[in-house]
């Protein structure tokens, strides 16, 4: 096996050998490697296939910007993960990785045929081609695209890993641990500011940490040596927290940032167990220093995507940090000085290399150094083509014309096994723009730079467009002193010698003799879009950068165009003849690098997914086979499946028992609001449609609450406990909103009212007993209470004790039966329930759930707000005009009840429906029509509630129908998929119209 690890470095521990699998084959690397560096050490460049043309692709970079080396890791159903960048994945024992975008395998790939038919796959190809015939989409196109697109596989079983969230506050957050980040963090922390420094890498230091060029020195030391001392120093600072392997995902307003910390991704599998895998840090910082550095740009020329073509600085990092050379005969193709650093490093390690520079000449320290070492430099030359299928083996260069628009002279063929490209540097302005910052364009080196616009954040270092070390350090120190309003002198005497770049030349799309249509000049490697695609989009009339991006898909892959966006912009600007600065950029959206769902969700999984509210009787329901229904956050018994009954049978049994003898319902979840104050009656007058002033103490009243637009909002029974004290009940789901709304009116519209609202929903538990035998059961529970109709009539309230515990008993009914609601402090709820059940045994007291409750009230035509109403129903629409006071001058929603729209006669109105076949049960939500022949069919309304009533032995339904009030007795049709159901409009009350049962 070839070995490209050519020297030892302090970052690779050669005593710790690690075996790992890539595409099923076993390889070895060392602790300190990333998957990418280990693969390169084994001579492997080819790691995947391109998305559209399935061209062989190799590792391009050494960081988050990597477009090609995207892997699927792990092989288990619950622990596999797609879209992992090999350049960021730290190697661990037992790692299993495979190339993601290739089928059936990386070396032989059916999709590779796309490469040869690529003239047929222009920009917008997917939009243009797979449009018709429509029937082909599901069966032919989609499976084909999916099979060959290779977007990775998601796990098929739940994620077993643990994720965590943490909320922290800092005076200063520094993003990025390179030279400028370290200086900023040190200055802040030494000035007594609580500081957090985060960096996405395993160690601090950025790209300077492996810098070893003699022409760049700080205080007479190599810059890397100087930086290591600085790092040692900041680690001692007590109010500085350093988080490595931590990347900022999002920068929101008010300096609220999200960071992802990787805690176990670098550990072997057995050591990951039971540990938190990733932690999401929610950071509030008073001030934020952005020191995120810059990313090297590729160059756009024909066949610039072959395996073995990398970014020049990445070649340098693989060499000096990982000890790995990317080739033995390397050509560096550049438009700036930084490739010379790589060249000199390679030369020092004895790696043959040649430089091709598009500049006519250059004269900095670095260039002199390269020249004196005898490195061959082709100035004013351009790479016009590359060769080699699975890896580059040679290339062609030509001389540039004076204006740089074309090539001149003869082709020169150079052999090589690796090509490094450097198109300059792009400052990472993502954080700045995410925070709302704007950008300015610097023509000199064609970069977008942060425009300083805030007192709360600042960019320093190369993300601010400062590229040479002297400039970086001086400007960082000055800016941080000003930004934090401090006077730090630590760097006053620091002596920096660095090489200054004097010569600049940039050509976004490098010239070629071959017509563009016949070249493959890639801009976005991951999404396979080329310079030709951009030009085609412009030709087809696209102008906005946002449109070109979407049409060509440039910059829309998982790397979000970190390497491609600038070139796309440059080519658009050049082609359209506009200045790049005026073109603007596409939007930089979070996350900076993809986040896992696990990190976002944290611990809110499984039973912690949402808050669950249980009543104090809950355990009894569980023990008695209740099936539960979620109502808001509450778990409510839906029905009790006795002896393995299904839902229908259980509901029929429960409903029958409640009317024949007695039923009991856990009504604890109803919202309860305690209302006190001398103006409580006046307040109720204003919030309900009916009158409250005359309600006697000890009496209950049903109320309907509207929105200001006149639509029904909530309903419930309110009891007058004493002169200035009421207890209001609301629907279970509406409780919080009703309280909020009432508070709003009280605080903002009627602050003069002396009223206090307190939510007491959780303070009381409620057992509701109904049915002809309920009085007998109550009598057993409260033997001293006079239950006669004279003393305790319907819609009244009494207090009594159950074994010394106070109870509030309301005689109110939602079923139409004689009915009592017993309220007790919640801690006694469970025992109250058990006592009721015990007392009711001889009367077949049957616990019933929400489904039976809904059925019983539907038999009586009582509405459920939110089921029979949907925010468009007035009291009149519900045929409840009786509850709207004509005398009251005002209440919430009153004025809206006679707007031109609310008094329309043909509004949808609540009616009853009876099916012609009494066994036929309608579907809730089904449409209602009068005629199925004329098309389009006129929709009259829909079914809102539907049940089979065991007490009436027939199907009943409530519905809203246009003009329904006038339609009693009329035949209508419910068209279903396979049949039309005939129904007759009826009264909404199906049972006991005279309310005799209330006093049974």
């Amino acid at each position, binding site marked *: 096996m070839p070995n490209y690890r050519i020297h030892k470095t302090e970052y690779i521990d050669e005593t710790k050998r690690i075996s790992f699998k890539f595409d099923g084959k076993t390889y070895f690397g060392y602790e300190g490697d990333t998957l990418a560096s280990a693969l390169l050490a084994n001579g492997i460049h080819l790691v995947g296939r391109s998305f559209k043309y399935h061209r062989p692709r190799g590792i391009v970079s050494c960081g988050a910007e990597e477009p090609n080396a995207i892997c699927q890791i792990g092989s288990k159903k619950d622990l596999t993960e797609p879209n992992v960048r090999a350049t960021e994945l730290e190697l661990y024992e037992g790692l299993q990785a495979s190339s993601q975008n290739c089928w059936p395998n990386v070396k032989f790939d059916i999709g590779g045929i796309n490469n040869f038919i690529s003239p047929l796959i222009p920009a917008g190809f997917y939009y243009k081609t797979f449009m018709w015939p429509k029937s082909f989409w599901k069966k032919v196109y989609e499976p084909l695209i999916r099979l060959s697109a290779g977007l990775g596989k998601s796990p098929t079983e739940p994620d077993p890993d643990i994720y965590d969230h943490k909320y922290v506050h800092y005076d200063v957050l520094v993003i990025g641990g390179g030279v400028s980040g370290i200086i900023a963090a040190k200055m802040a922390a030494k000035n007594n500011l609580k500081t957090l420094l985060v960096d996405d890498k395993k160690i601090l230091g950025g790209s300077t940490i492996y810098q070893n060029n003699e022409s760049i020195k700080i205080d007479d030391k190599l810059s890397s040596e100087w930086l290591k001392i600085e790092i040692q120093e900041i680690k001692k600072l007590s109010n500085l927290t350093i988080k490595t392997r931590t990347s900022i995902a999002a920068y*929101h*307003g*008010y300096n*609220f940032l999200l960071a992802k910390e990787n805690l176990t991704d670098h550990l072997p599998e057995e050591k990951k167990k039971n540990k938190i895998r990733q932690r999401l840090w929610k950071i*509030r910082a008073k001030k934020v220093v952005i020191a995120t550095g810059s990313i090297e740009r590729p160059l756009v020329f024909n066949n610039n995507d072959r395996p073995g073509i990398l970014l020049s600085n990445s070649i340098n990092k693989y060499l000096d940090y990982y000890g790995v050379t990317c080739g033995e005969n390397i050509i560096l193709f550049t438009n700036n000085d930084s490739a010379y650093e790589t060249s000199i490093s390679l030369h020092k390690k004895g790696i043959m290399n040649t430089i091709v520079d598009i500049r006519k000449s250059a004269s900095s320290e670095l260039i002199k150094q390269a020249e004196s070492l005898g490195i061959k430099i082709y100035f004013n030359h351009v790479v016009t083509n590359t060769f080699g299928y699975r890896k580059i083996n040679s290339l062609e260069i030509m001389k540039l014309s004076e204006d740089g628009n074309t090539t001149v002279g003869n082709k020169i063929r150079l052999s090589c096994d690796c090509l490094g490209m450097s198109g300059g540097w792009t400052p990472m302005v993502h954080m700045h723009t995410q925070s*709302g910052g704007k950008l300015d364009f610097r023509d000199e080196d064609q970069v977008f730079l942060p425009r300083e616009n805030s007192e709360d954040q600042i960019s320093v270092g190369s993300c601010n467009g400062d590229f040479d070390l002297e400039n970086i350090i001086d400007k960082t120190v000055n800016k941080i002193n000003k930004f934090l309003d401090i006077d730090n002198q630590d760097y006053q005497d620091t002596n920096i010698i660095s090489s200054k770049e004097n010569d600049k030349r940039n050509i976004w799309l490098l010239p070629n003799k071959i017509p563009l249509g016949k070249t493959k000049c890639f801009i976005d490697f991951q999404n396979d879009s080329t310079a030709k695609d951009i030009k085609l989009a412009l030709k087809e009339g696209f102008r906005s950068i946002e449109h070109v991006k979407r049409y060509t898909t440039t910059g829309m892959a998982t790397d979000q165009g970190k390497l491609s966006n600038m070139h796309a912009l440059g080519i658009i600007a050049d082609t359209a003849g506009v200045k790049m600065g005026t073109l603007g950029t596409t939007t930089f959206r979070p996350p900076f690098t993809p986040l896992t769902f696990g990190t976002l969700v944290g611990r809110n999984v499984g039973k912690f997914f949402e808050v669950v509210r249980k009543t104090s009787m809950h355990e009894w329901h569980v023990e008695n086979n209740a099936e539960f229904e979620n109502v808001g956050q509450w778990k409510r018994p839906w029905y009790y499946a006795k002896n393995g009954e299904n839902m229908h049978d259980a509901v029929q049994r429960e409903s029958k028992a409640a009317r024949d003898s007695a039923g009991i319902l856990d009504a604890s979840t109803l919202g309860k609001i305690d209302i006190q104050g001398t103006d409580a009656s006046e307040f109720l007058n204003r919030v309900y449609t009916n009158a409250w002033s005359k309600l006697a103490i000890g009496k209950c009243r049903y109320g309907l609450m509207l929105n*200001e*637009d006149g639509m029904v909002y909530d309903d419930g029974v309110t009891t007058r406990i004493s002169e200035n004290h009421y207890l209001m009940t609301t629907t279970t789901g509406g409780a919080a909103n009703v309280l*909020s709304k009432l*508070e*709003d009116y009280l*605080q*903002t*519209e009627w*602050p003069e009212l002396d009223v206090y609202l307190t939510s007491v929903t959780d303070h009381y538990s409620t057992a509701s007993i109904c049915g002809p035998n309920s009085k007998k059961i109550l009598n057993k529970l409260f033997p001293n209470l006079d239950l006669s109709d004279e003393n305790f009539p319907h819609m009244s309230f009494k207090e009594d004790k159950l074994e010394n515990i106070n109870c509030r008993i309301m005689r109110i009914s939602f079923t139409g039966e004689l009915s009592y609601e017993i309220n007790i402090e919640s801690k006694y709820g469970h025992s109250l329930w058990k006592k009721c059940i015990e007392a009711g045994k001889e009367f077949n007291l049957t616990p019933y759930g929400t489904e039976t409750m809904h059925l019983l009230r539907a038999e009586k035509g009582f509405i459920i707000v939110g089921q029979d109403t949907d925010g468009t129903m007035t009291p009149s629409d519900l045929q409840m005009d009786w509850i709207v006071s004509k005398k009251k*001058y*005002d209440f919430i929603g*009153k*004025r*809206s009840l006679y*707007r*031109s729209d609310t008094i329309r006669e043909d509004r949808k109105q609540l009616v009853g429906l009876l099916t012609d076949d009494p066994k036929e049960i309608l579907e809730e939500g089904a449409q209602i029509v009068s005629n199925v022949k004329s098309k389009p069919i006129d929709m009259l309304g829909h079914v809102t509630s539907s049940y089979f009533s065991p007490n009436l032995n027939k199907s009943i339904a409530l519905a809203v129908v246009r003009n329904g009030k006038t339609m009693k007795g009329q035949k209508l049709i419910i068209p279903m998929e396979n049949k039309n159901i005939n129904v007759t409009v009826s009264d909404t009350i199906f049972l006991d119209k005279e309310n005799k049962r209330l006093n049974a």
Partner: protein
Amino acid sequence: MFLINCPFCGERDQSEFSSGGEAHIVRPKQPTELSDDEWAEYLFMRKNIKGIQFERWNHVHGCRKWFNVVRDTSNDKILSVYKMGEKPPVNYK
């Protein structure tokens, strides 16, 4: 995510609050005297300002108090907070 300075509790995370739309819209004292159009003006019409906006917020997961906020919607900066019933600061218009 805003930091909102509740006039009763101090600076808290936005997640503790709920927004209540435009401020200083007074419910008419005599709704019955209003025409449909006048009532609709109160009921439905709200400004959608780019720039300085006066709005209501409720510290719903805190003290439950409603209060007013002056916010520049173009950059989300909160310029001032004041209690219900207090006059809006005059230096913003």
